[in-house]
């Protein structure tokens, strides 16, 4: 027995099956965690190798190039880039999307092991880093403090970080911007010389004084005692009293030759929030933890933590990712709700019956809820993508139920009892329903195969819609007929009230039927004119499409902005601080939209590898982060605000480079799109000059270029100490010893650790600040040989000033410099065209390579992928339809609606002035599956009429007229389901708006033309078939007659 017959005959079983699905769905929903985006694994690995003391060129030659050669041969590598800077080499490996990074990491580790022995001795162990969405902070807290500032780090570490770490799901809590304690021993070189002491000896003495040693075990009587020798400093003041030199008659204390200070590090990164100095605390989550839940718990814990803090320390929330998640989810939830409401209205408008409407609308929650089960089973979250899938699918899930119910109703009207009508009515359209579902699945299933950035978004979307649509078909074939058999009556009476309300609507619908019939007759009489007109329209739209702007992802307003401002390299930190303060005050006053403005400046600690790699820092660099009030509460978008803020910065001539990113992130698809011009060439001076020239031209001539940045920083002055090896050899001093002497005096020697309350602080021995401020101070450093004989640096070395690059960037083993142009308000395609025309006017040296990339490159790659996807989808849809009609020509006729969908897409983008981005392109691909549905319904019924013996024209007209309502109805549900997505201004809606616009435009336009052009083309094909058939029949009869006469 068929599935629908079973369903109708066993209503209780059917009902309970669906109840079970709903219960499971709701249970899954309660278990699903909420996040902004699906988890994704990046396709990048980063390898960091420390090479302390080396400058950028040394790192490039000795570490980076060597490792690049080794790593270049790993499998699936797409791009290899590197940055060599002082003390560090950072190599980034970008893999093809879909590469298993676990395997890749092992592969890289093997290669590193192989090359390990060839690295210079001073180089440290290379570390491999992987990125993921877990590295996006959940909450950033800012801490304001006045009196407690010197002890802030310890206060925060003990009372805040520990408390937060105990929260379930919190991955790591890191504190930045708080001054860290240090014990400084600042020596006077003259006194050292007088006592014939060296820094190394002092360090040795401090280290040996500051020591606890177990002394063994001691048996006394019947007990055993352990013995300890206690020598560690209890107070930092004790260090002052260490005897560094004892003669017969007197002792020299450390305080005699040095100043011992228990203080905080002099070079730190300072952080200011709303003008008050303090620290910031970054909270990351554990992988798989629920962002919203953690943020809520952190916020709940804060009042309790605040109570335990000194009164001047105030903690506030600087950034809370869960805010934007909650807003986006709330926005999308209401989008889904409105879509649902519109669909209900459409169904009741066309059907005019409560019970029928109820039956159809019931398929929506049933199918949507079922998809939650999938989400839970596949370890997904409730995020922007999965919720948007619901809102895309909502208009389509009713289609199957509509077709089934319509047919059952017509059976009932002919007099079948509801039960039989349900079975046979479903039987008749079952195949067509499955076929239309397959065409939609043929579109959405390939989306699950998309890779790359776009794949991150469209993989869950593809799965969700495919599953929802398939489930809606199952519901349409079981639940709908079952409910029809139970709820529909043979002759539903209509009350007067109902007729007053619905009467006019029915008149409109009847008028529409008749109007369509007249129009159809007209176009069928003027077939050639109709077709020529349609083709012309298509060509015109293609011409318009040529001038359509493109983009990657539409930028979205998330109420954040970040930025990096740089002053002249080498500017003192005090001046940077002053400038930052003035800018912050100006903005704070001018923009009431700013809720929090945080900036950090200064040099990060050397051992803070992450800060060194992830963000530019230095005495001349200001890193900005601003949070604006949420979208509904302000008139200006973050793009307008950022533009205006950028204009303000023109008043600050001391700023050398300005980079402001609305949205907070740069590149990478989601943030502000950039066009990167990569200039490859070995010679620094020539590539720099070329980049500067191009920058000037772009700023002058290219419209919309906001920030133009050159990646290579200015050369910075450095002093080099060049030892004369001959003289060193005569003195018997190894080169490394001499170098170490210089380092210990200027940079300092970490002699030992001072321990207090379970924390340890460095004890650093070096020259006092005033003894390391000039070249002479370096030249006067005394280096001792193994016999204890001292010699000044100036006697064995030259100290000279040179300029050196702070970092060297390479890509695919070639040096390059990037000119990155961000264009928040102009489509990338226009910027690229501008840049290309500038490049054409310039002389490009033969040994230079120029490549235009950045977001634009990603965009090109993704569009190429989508092009292939489109072809695949069209082919799949053709196959599905050809097998349904068992004909090569029928699907071809139906697919004529595709060009008109394209026309609609182009027109709608043009009218709404939306650039063509990835989401719009995906929308266009979805249209392939959606628009052919109309054609299938239409051609299917015309075919039916012809098989029943109607001649072509009659079949076309009566078929068209009778299918008008189902076509309009399914179209209207899909269209209206999309409208909330296209118009509702919620956070993150920018991303989906183009898709909704494209689907609405394409579907509306193609439906109108499909209703006219498809019947016309159908008649051409059909007349040919008919003639062929008539000739064949005549030949057959003639043959039989000739046989009889024989």
């Amino acid at each position: 027995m068929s599935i629908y017959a079973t369903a109708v005959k066993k209503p209780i079983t059917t009902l309970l099956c669906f109840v079970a699905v709903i219960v499971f769905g709701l249970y899954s929903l309660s278990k699903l965690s909420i996040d902004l985006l699906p988890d994704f694994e990046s396709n990048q690995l980063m390898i960091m190798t420390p090479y302390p003391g080396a400058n950028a060129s040394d790192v490039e030659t000795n570490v980076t190039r060597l490792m690049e050669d080794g790593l270049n041969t790993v499998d699936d590598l797409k791009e290899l880039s590197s940055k060599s800077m002082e003390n560090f080499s950072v190599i980034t490996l970008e893999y093809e999307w879909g590469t298993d990074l676990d395997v890749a990491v092992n592969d890289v580790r093997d290669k590193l092991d192989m090359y390990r022995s060839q690295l210079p001795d001073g180089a440290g162990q290379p570390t491999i880093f992987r990125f993921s969405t877990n590295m996006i902070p959940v909450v950033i807290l800012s801490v304001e403090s006045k009196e407690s500032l010197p002890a802030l780090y310890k206060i925060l570490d003990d009372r805040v970080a520990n408390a937060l770490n105990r929260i379930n799901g919190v991955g790591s809590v890191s504190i930045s911007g708080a001054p860290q304690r240090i014990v400084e021993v600042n020596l006077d070189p003259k006194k050292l010389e007088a006592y014939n002491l060296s820094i190394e000896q002092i360090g040795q003495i401090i280290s040996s004084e500051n020591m606890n040693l177990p002394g063994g075990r001691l048996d006394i009587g019947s007990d055993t005692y352990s013995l300890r020798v206690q020598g560690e400093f209890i107070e930092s003041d004790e260090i002052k009293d260490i005897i560094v030199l004892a003669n017969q008659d007197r002792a020299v204390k450390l305080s005699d030759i040095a100043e011992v200070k228990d203080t905080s590090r002099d070079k730190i990164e300072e952080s200011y929030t709303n003008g008050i100095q303090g620290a910031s605390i970054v909270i990351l989550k554990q992988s798989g933890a629920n962002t919203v839940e953690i943020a809520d718990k952190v916020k709940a814990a804060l009042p309790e933590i605040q109570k335990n803090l000194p009164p001047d320390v105030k903690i506030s929330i600087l950034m809370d990712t869960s805010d934007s998640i909650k807003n986006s989810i709330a926005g999308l939830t209401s989008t889904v709700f409105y879509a649902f409401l519109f669909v209900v209205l459409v169904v009741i408008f066309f059907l005019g019956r409560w019970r029928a409407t109820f039956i159809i609308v019931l398929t929506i929650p049933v199918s949507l809820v079922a998809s939650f089960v999938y989400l839970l089973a596949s370890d997904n979250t409730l995020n922007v993508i999965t919720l948007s899938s619901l809102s895309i699918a909502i208009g389509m899930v009713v289609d199957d139920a509509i077709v089934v119910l319509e047919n059952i109703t017509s059976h009932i009207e002919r007099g079948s009892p509801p039960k039989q009508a349900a079975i046979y009515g479903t039987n008749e359209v079952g195949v067509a329903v499955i076929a239309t579902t397959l065409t939609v699945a043929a579109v959405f299933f390939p989306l699950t195969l998309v890779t790359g950035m776009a794949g991150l978004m469209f993989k869950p979307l593809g799965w969700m819609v495919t599953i929802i649509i398939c489930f809606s078909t199952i519901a349409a074939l079981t639940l709908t007929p079952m409910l029809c058999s139970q709820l529909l009556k043979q002759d539903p009476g209509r009350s007067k009230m109902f007729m007053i309300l619905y009467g006019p609507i029915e008149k409109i619908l009847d008028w529409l039927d008749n109007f369509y019939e007249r129009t159809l007759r007209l176009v069928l009489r003027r077939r050639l004119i109709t077709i020529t007109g349609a083709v012309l329209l298509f060509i015109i739209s293609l011409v318009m499409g040529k001038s359509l702007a493109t983009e990657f992802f539409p930028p979205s307003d998330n109420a954040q902005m970040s930025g990096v401002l740089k002053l002249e390299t080498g500017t003192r930190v005090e001046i940077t601080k002053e400038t930052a303060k003035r800018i912050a005050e100006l903005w704070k006053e001018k923009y009431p939209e700013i809720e929090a403005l945080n900036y950090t400046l200064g040099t990060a600690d050397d051992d803070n590898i992450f800060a060194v790699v992830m963000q530019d820092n230095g005495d001349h660099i200001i890193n900005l982060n601003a949070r604006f009030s949420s979208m509904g509460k302000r008139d200006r978008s973050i793009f307008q605000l950022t533009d205006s803020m950028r204009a303000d910065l023109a008043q600050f001539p001391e700023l050398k480079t300005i980079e402001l990113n609305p949205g907070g992130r740069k590149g990478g698809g989601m943030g502000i799109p950039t066009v990167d011009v990569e200039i490859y060439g070995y010679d620094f001076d020539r590539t720099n000059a070329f980049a500067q020239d191009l920058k000037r031209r772009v700023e002058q001539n290219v419209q919309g270029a906001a920030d133009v940045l050159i990646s290579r920083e200015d050369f910075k002055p450095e002093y080099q100490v060049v030892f004369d090896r001959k003289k060193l050899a005569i003195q018997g001093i190894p080169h490394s010893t001499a170098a170490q002497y210089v380092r210990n005096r200027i940079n300092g020697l970490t002699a030992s650790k001072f321990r207090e309350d379970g924390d340890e602080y460095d004890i650093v021995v070096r020259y006092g600040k005033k003894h390391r401020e000039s070249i002479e101070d370096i030249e006067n450093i005394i280096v001792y040989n193994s016999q204890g004989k001292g010699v000044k640096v100036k006697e064995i070395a030259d100290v000279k000033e040179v300029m050196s690059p702070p970092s060297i960037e390479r890509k695919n083993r070639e040096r390059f410099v990037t000119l990155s142009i961000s264009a928040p308000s102009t489509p990338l395609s226009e910027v690229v065209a501008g840049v290309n025309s500038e490049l054409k006017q310039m002389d490009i040296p033969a040994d230079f390579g120029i490549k235009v990339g950045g977001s634009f490159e990603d965009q090109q790659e993704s569009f190429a992928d989508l092009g292939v996807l489109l072809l695949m989808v069209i082919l799949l849809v053709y196959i599905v339809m050809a097998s349904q009609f068992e004909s090569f020509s029928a699907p071809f006729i139906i697919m004529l609606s595709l060009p008109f969908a394209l026309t609609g897409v182009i027109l709608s983008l043009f009218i709404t002035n939306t650039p063509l981005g990835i989401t719009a392109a995906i929308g266009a691909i979805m249209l392939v599956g959606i628009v052919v549905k109309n054609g299938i319904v239409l051609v299917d019924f015309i075919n039916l009429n012809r098989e029943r013996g109607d001649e072509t024209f009659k079949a076309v007209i009566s078929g068209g007229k009778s299918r008008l309502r189902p076509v309009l109805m399914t179209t209207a549900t899909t269209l209206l389901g999309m409208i909330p997505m296209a118009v509702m201004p919620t956070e993150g809606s920018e991303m989906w708006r183009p898709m909704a616009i494209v689907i609405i435009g394409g579907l509306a336009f193609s439906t109108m033309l499909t209703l006219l052009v498809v019947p016309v083309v159908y008649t051409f094909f059909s007349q040919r078939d008919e003639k062929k058939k008539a000739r064949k029949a005549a030949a057959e009869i003639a043959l039989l007659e000739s046989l009889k006469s024989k």
Partner: protein
Amino acid sequence: MKAVFISFNQALREDIILVFDELGIKGFSFWEETQGRGSHTGESHFGNHAWPTLNSSILTMVDADKVDTLLDLLHGLDKRNELLGLRAFVWNIEKSI
């Protein structure tokens, strides 16, 4: 004994069995799916895409005195909904075992 052959739209099956039970007709042969086309006004019932409906057929042997009542009831059934379609034909049984 008379043979009655009834060909009817599948939707009418349950009603016919009801009539049989009413008249105490116990024995019959039943073909779930038969294809057919009416001679005068009837639509085609081919179970295909163009003519999706199918007929069922019943052949039953009844006592001669029940035939008229049976035909009347069946006729009523057909009258109730002529679009569905029901036809019955009666002929004599010569012999049986």
